[in-house]
């Protein structure tokens, strides 16, 4: 028992950190499009960072709980509500059997995450609970959630001591700078082509899914053409075919490709790509591999520190004034606590 999907939204899938070790067989890793928001949601409910959770896209789902648990929402702000009342994001929230969680359209960003204490009860396939939509495997029956789907909790923890909160990150406005490491085929482009790529803004087209993000903008000039003998691919690789338009390859990309790749998005900036929407503008900035590693270590440290802070015993009874408040016929204990930070 866990929740029943009353409305699946546009595209809601079960994800964990991905299915690694099978690219040599042609399987992309899948996993979340915004790793920072995904990990944060899990940490908020006391899970390991890579536990299975839901990823919602553009328009979120409505879920009816049939078991008590603790949940957390992160990522895009889809105006979440719990039983019709605004449900806070970036903090753990206790839910009861019968409660209705409803997400709407994304006001900022593109993808929201819903984590559940103890994770979701879907069978691991090849060591992972991530849904690979293209391969129709993993997650909930290898597909997106549909109306009526019941997904169980594996080890719910409705008594997780609260409060548990995390800082809300900035998903950027309608124009963001994404940092990249040039290569592996940057030498297939003219100097002018590289300057265009790094100097001009690109717009996210309608063609944007978990496989990739097709951009529109000034043509990036090749020395000859965009074809190579197919080689391996990474998440974040920016492929430019002979048309000269870039595509950022994402979680469910193919594992090999026969087009030139001018650069790859640094790991620390991939979450920002995952929060783009059609019409958003992207500017690319080249950084060294060393700089990319420094930023990735900072990304990792930020989440580990959050995990360590949340692992500290939370004050069971914060000092403050307790009120009893009744909203829509339900009573709540509310504590007003003085912030000391």
């Amino acid at each position, binding site marked *: 028992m866990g929740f029943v999907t009353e409305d699946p939204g546009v595209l809601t899938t079960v994800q964990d950190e991905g299915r*690694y070790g*099978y690219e*040599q067989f042609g399987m992309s890793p899948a996993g979340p499009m915004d790793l920072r928001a995904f990990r944060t949601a899990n940490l908020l409910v006391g899970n390991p960072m890579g536990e299975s959770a839901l990823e919602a896209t553009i328009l979120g789902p409505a879920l009816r709980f049939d078991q008590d648990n603790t949940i957390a929402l992160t990522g895009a702000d889809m105006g979440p509500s719990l039983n019709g009342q605004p449900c806070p994001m970036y903090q753990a929230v206790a839910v009861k059997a019968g409660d209705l969680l409803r997400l709407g359209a994304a006001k900022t960003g593109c993808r929201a995450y819903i984590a559940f204490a103890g994770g979701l009860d879907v069978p691991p396939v090849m060591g992972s609970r991530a849904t690979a939509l293209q391969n129709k*495997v993993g997650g909930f029956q290898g597909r997106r959630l549909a109306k009526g789907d019941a997904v169980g909790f594996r080890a719910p923890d409705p008594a997780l001591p609260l409060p548990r909160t995390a800082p809300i990150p900035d998903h950027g406005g309608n124009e963001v700078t994404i940092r990249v490491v040039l290569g*592996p085929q940057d030498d297939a482009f003219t100097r002018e082509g590289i300057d265009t790529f790094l100097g001009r803004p690109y717009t996210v087209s309608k063609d944007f899914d978990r496989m990739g993000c097709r951009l529109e903008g000034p043509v990036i000039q090749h020395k000859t053409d965009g074809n190579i003998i197919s*080689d*391996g691919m*990474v998440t974040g690789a920016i492929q430019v075919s002979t048309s000269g338009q870039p595509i950022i390859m994402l979680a469910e990309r193919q594992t090999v490709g026969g087009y030139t790749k001018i650069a790859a998005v640094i790991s620390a900036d991939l979450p920002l790509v995952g929060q783009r929407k059609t019409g958003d503008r992207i500017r690319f900035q080249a950084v060294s*591999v060393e700089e990319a*590693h420094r930023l990735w270590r900072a990304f990792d440290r930020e989440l580990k520190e959050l995990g360590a802070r949340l692992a500290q015993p939370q004050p069971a009874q914060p000092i403050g004034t307790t009120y009893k408040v009744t909203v829509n016929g339900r009573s709540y204990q509310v504590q007003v606590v003085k912030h000391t930070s």
Partner: protein
Amino acid sequence: MSDYTLRYVGDQALLVEFENEISMEVNQKVRALRFDLERKRIPGLGELVPTYRALLVHYDPLTADLDQIKEDIRQSADQMDLSQLPNAIVTEIPVLYEGEYALDLEDIAKLENTTPEEIVRIHSGSDYYVYMLGFAPGHSYTARFEAPFSFKRRETPRVRIPGGSIVVQLGLSNVIPFDQPCGWNIIGTTPILACDYRKEDPFLLRAGQWIRHIPIDKAEFLEIKRQVELGEYQCRTYERGM
């Protein structure tokens, strides 16, 4: 010793490229480097993804020493000895070359100006080498080293061909794991699954191995299919030198 080019691929992978051609010789270097790096058990080394002429080397920047990995690659390339490669595996794949299971066999025979029987004899008469996997899970890029046929793709690709189709053009022959669009000619169908998620190891084939197609009749096809559905069928495999 083998010359190579080392390239950065984002901040979590390196690409080691050998000569810019599709050939057995170059692909054997990819295979040799992969064996060697796997044997070294380098801390922080991730998955190794072999393709025609290059090896993609994933690493974890939080635990790996990038300079050490580059040094390990250099040493492996310097000391590369293709004669030391382990024997390759051959997997026998049963194929029904008949009727609705071999939609284009008659056309292929006409294109090659011969009989369907001769086409089957040619296709099943030599081993095909698996250069790499990609496109879909378990999808192999497979070829032999003389082009047994002269025809290429169909003029109009089919929107959907079934998983299990054996498709051919020139010296290439692929086992199609799942339903997909395809412009190649269908020479036969195998009851074997190239990717079976029910299995602990779902994948029938690996880069650097060989395939031999074994003609079967309809009764054998149905019996093997039954065993495959029960998860009981094992393809026959054996070793061969390169």
